[in-house]
């Protein structure tokens, strides 16, 4: 029957699914990997000047929001790790430099072509980089100084800078629009607050010469205040600088704010 034949032919066509060759050679091929940092407060996009509630009837409003990310490396499906060249592997993620959508982009060039499954990066500056001395910092030292991410060299880098105001009704007396400054960092070599975080990709990130994948990382900054530890502005966390007591708590909380929301394989 004619129709039966047509129907069978159609079915046959459908069953001939395009065969993709996964045997492409990636040897010597490099590509670009873009990391998109997107600061949020819970499920909301972070916006300067907006008042956000935290725990214990306290709230905050930020005018500056930046942190340092360094030592970015990615691991592929075969367990190989690609580490971005050390001298350039340090970045300031500054909300003020965000695009229209509030995303801060880091572009990594010359990344080995591979199927990557996870990313690791540090928050702040590790002791090894600090030990290179002021001369060993390359351009980054000047950049960090310009961005207000340095104390004196002896004290070192500020790993983060959250500036703004806070309100607290648990403070005695209650505070309305008090000054807020969270400037956590390592303190010279005496206090090491550098932390690393490893995040699995929800989908394979395919770096190729012809493909520019993007990794969309959401940083929920509310976890800086209500993360592993909930801190209160009223208890001295309205001003965090070089204290050996408060900075490690904030460093731990900061480490937990990152999540890979999704990836794009373009």
């Amino acid at each position, binding site marked *: *029957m*004619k*129709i039966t034949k*047509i*129907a069978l032919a*159609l*079915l046959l*066509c*459908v069953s001939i*699914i*395009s065969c*993709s060759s996964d045997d492409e050679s990636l040897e010597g091929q490099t590509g670009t990997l873009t990391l998109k940092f*997107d600061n*949020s407060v819970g*499920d*909301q*996009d972070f*916006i300067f000047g907006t008042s956000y509630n935290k725990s214990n009837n306290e709230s905050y409003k930020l005018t500056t929001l930046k942190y340092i990310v360094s030592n970015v490396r990615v691991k592929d499906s075969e367990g190989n790790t690609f580490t971005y060249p050390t001298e350039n592997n340090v970045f300031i993620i500054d909300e003020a430099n965000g695009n*229209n*959508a509030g995303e801060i982009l880091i572009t990594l060039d010359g990344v080995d072509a591979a199927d990557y499954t996870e990313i690791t990066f540090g928050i702040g500056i590790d002791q090894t980089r600090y030990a290179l001395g002021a001369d060993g910092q390359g351009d980054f030292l000047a950049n960090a100084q310009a961005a207000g991410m340095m104390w004196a060299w002896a004290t070192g880098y500020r790993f983060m800078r959250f500036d703004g105001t806070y309100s607290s009704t648990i403070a005695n007396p209650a505070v309305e629009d008090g000054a807020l400054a969270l400037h956590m960092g390592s303190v010279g070599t005496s206090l090491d607050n550098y932390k690393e975080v490893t995040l699995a990709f*929800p*989908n*394979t990130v*395919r770096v190729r010469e012809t493909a520019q994948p993007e990794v*969309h990382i*959401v940083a929920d900054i509310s976890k800086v205040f209500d993360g592993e530890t909930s801190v209160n502005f009223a208890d001295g966390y309205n001003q965090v600088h070089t204290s050996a007591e408060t900075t490690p708590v904030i460093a731990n909380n900061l480490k937990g704010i990152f999540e890979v*929301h*999704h990836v*794009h*394989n*373009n």
Partner: protein
Amino acid sequence: MIKDLQNINIKAVLIGLLFFLIPLQNEAKSIPPHEHSAFEFFCDLCGCSTSSGSSSFGTLGNVSFVGVRYIYQDFKSKDGIFSNSPTSTERFNTYQLWGRVPISERFSLNAIIPYQDLKREFEDRSEHRNGLGDMSIIGWYQFKFYKKKAENEDDANEERELSAHQLNFGLGAKLPTGAFEEGLANRVNPGFQVGTGSFDAVFSLMHTYSRNKVGVNTTATYYLKTENKNEYRFGNQFSFASNVYYNVPFEKSALSPFIGVSGDVYDSIKQFGEALQGTNGNIVNGTLGSEFMVDKFIVGANYTFPINQHLFGDNVTSKNRFTIYLNYVL
């Protein structure tokens, strides 16, 4: 001119590509028996369909026809990943040539050639795509049921009476005739595409029942989708639709209002063989509509509205769908 047209004999030939909109014929003084079968079908499976529901595949009436159809759909999508991200509005205009021609007593062939005109408005910009969409072709086989004979009936009567039930099985394909743009697929609503770029199989089962002036028809369809050249694969889809209609005959015409419910369930989209999060979903729609028949012409219109939906992690919301069509019964 009209006189000339009237003299042309109807010869319906439209396998696949060519539809000729056929001339008026004056002989049709009596209304053809109007069996309904709102072949709920063809959401186009194209991009727009990946997020929209099933549009019907045929005219009401299990009849052969050629015609034109216009479908308007709108969606609201989140342009971003946050609860306070801006939104975009997508408006899909689809113009179709469509028809169903008999091949033999039990076989018929359905074809749809869509032209897509898609618009998306962001808060600060807009996007526009148009072009030939994904064509579909489907073959139908009809199972006929006959009434049981009463004991006292004359056996000599060879003509068996048809039952009020009818079952149709359809097997077909959606062709990658529309353009697929990989860049668009990375957006929150990956359905904003003129085509899926894939060759998909369509399996459909349609049941119709009509008695006196009332009829019910129900369709269940499964779309088996394949990977396109970009190693992107829209999720397989199950669609169902059921409509109840009432036939109101007039002297030379008839009106058939109907009400129905339809729905779609989508699997996750896969890219490079991996499922993408938040790309599966489901939707249940209600439909109100009517057809009006005069001579050999059928004019139809319906409005479809979502009752319950979870599309693309709730980041895409289907709003309304309006459909109008003009068919000529062969």
